């Protein structure tokens, strides 16, 4: 397990290492600031950062940019912010570690964060796929409608014709439907 702790104070990285004692192999690296090149070469399994770190915006932007290899990020709140961590977790804002960083709690929290992260990644992937499917279905429906109108086919025959086009050209149904609609647009003068 490789852990990157972003904190100017090496004490927190030491606490994390202490809490993960027994995990093998284990490499805990501490860095005062987040450095994209360093993170890429170290390739951590998880990043730990204070919730009042100036690096949070950078880390968040990496996640949003859908970088090729995203990392789970765990934040911890100091005791100077009473209640914030509990509220943040309840609101689903982030996986904050409550009450600072106690060695005994490091391992379960990091494990939960990593599990939750991979679950979220999977959900995100599923959602993107579902959206693409829906979009493709809409296009196929419109292409069917076009064929029904222009060729005087019933719905079933229009679908079969589309499917045949897809099979003949070895391309997905959605792509064939998109092309058909685009060509129809050009012939009608939409895109001239």
């Amino acid at each position, binding site marked *: 397990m490789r852990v990157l702790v972003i904190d100017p104070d090496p004490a927190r990285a030491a606490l994390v290492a202490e809490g993960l004692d027994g995990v093998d192999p284990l490499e805990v690296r501490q860095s005062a600031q987040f450095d994209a090149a360093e993170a890429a070469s170290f390739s951590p399994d998880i990043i730990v950062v204070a919730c009042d770190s100036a690096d949070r*915006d950078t880390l968040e*932007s990496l996640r949003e*940019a859908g970088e090729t290899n995203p990392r789970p990020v765990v934040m911890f709140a100091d005791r100077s912010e009473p209640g914030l961590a509990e509220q943040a977790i309840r*609101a689903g804002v982030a996986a904050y570690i409550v009450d600072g960083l106690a060695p005994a709690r490091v391992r379960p929290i990091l494990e939960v964060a990593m599990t939750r992260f991979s679950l979220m990644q999977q959900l995100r992937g599923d959602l993107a796929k579902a959206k693409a499917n829906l979009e493709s279905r809409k296009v196929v429906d419109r292409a069917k409608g076009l064929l029904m109108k222009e060729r005087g086919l019933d719905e079933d025959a229009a679908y079969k014709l589309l499917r045949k086009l897809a099979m003949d050209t070895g391309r997905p149904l959605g792509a064939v439907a998109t092309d058909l609609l685009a060509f129809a647009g050009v012939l009608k003068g939409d895109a001239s």
Partner: protein
Amino acid sequence: MSSLTLGFIPLTDCAPLVAAEAKGFFAGEGLDVTLSREASWATIRDKVTVGALDAAHMLAPMALAATAGAGGPVAPMIAPLALAVNGAGVTLSNRLSLALPAGAESLQEIAAGLAAFIGQRRAAGEPPLTFAVVFTYSMHNYALRYWLAEAGVDLDRDVRLVVTPPPRMVEQLRTGQVDGVCVGAPWNTVATRGGLGRVALRTSQFWPGGPDKVLGARAEFADDDRLAPLLRALVRAQAWCDVADNRDELAALLAQPEYVGAAAEAIRPALGEELIFHREGACVPRLEHAQWFLTQMRRWKQVDGDLDAQALIASVYRPALALEALGTTGLGAPVLVNPAPLFDGTTFDAG
């Protein structure tokens, strides 16, 4: 006295909050305010979401993005007041400035020079230039992208855009880690005073009177009794910030380490020249501004195309609250003229 905690980021346009505290406008409204300096916009958003902050200095698009759930959980917010217009800029490193054609001064000329240089680098197989912005959902990100895209730069292929905390941008210009930055005052001035580059774009040229920061709060705060006095105190402070004779005092105030923590000489130039807090209805969160942000959020695929933009804007942007504060303080309602066009002539209507 009612208590309130307000968050801010060390930037010159947090001035209305600092002035309202220092000049007694909060106290005058019976408010006991704690100003909390925060290290990142993400922390501001999270703390406002969970109620650890009652309201905060916020990037205008952040309030829209949080409400739409872009890039995170849905966190409904309101923007009842704009804190300032303009104030951000793009600084190019000295190395990059030297690559521009001599005499390139206008936004179009500089962007064309940049696009040509970027094209040469790509043809030569050199790595893309790196530009830093302050946050994904910010005027800074949208202005830089729009400007470069207008000149034909492919934002996904030709340049690398990174998010960097503002104080660190100056250092990264020095070390050459970034070739350009888009950031708010005072950091462009800090960089140029340090001889680290030239300002190639000011948002006041990009979009005169264009948006930047708002006061953001969670949606429930719209019904809070403390909102009206808070807005009255802030519009009074904004009017104070705009008075020419107060600017030296304001710069000295902001320079203190608990606020912006930069030299007063670096803060002073943007006051009056760039940032407008009160004049010309600067405090009114304009629907046209939100409209433009939504077009950019769609353009860069930050929100779904089928998002109901009008409903989102109406729930977040609350110009009526700012106008009411101006009215009840006797500062008077501004004459709201149509927003100026962008540098390329693009105009807006509230649609």
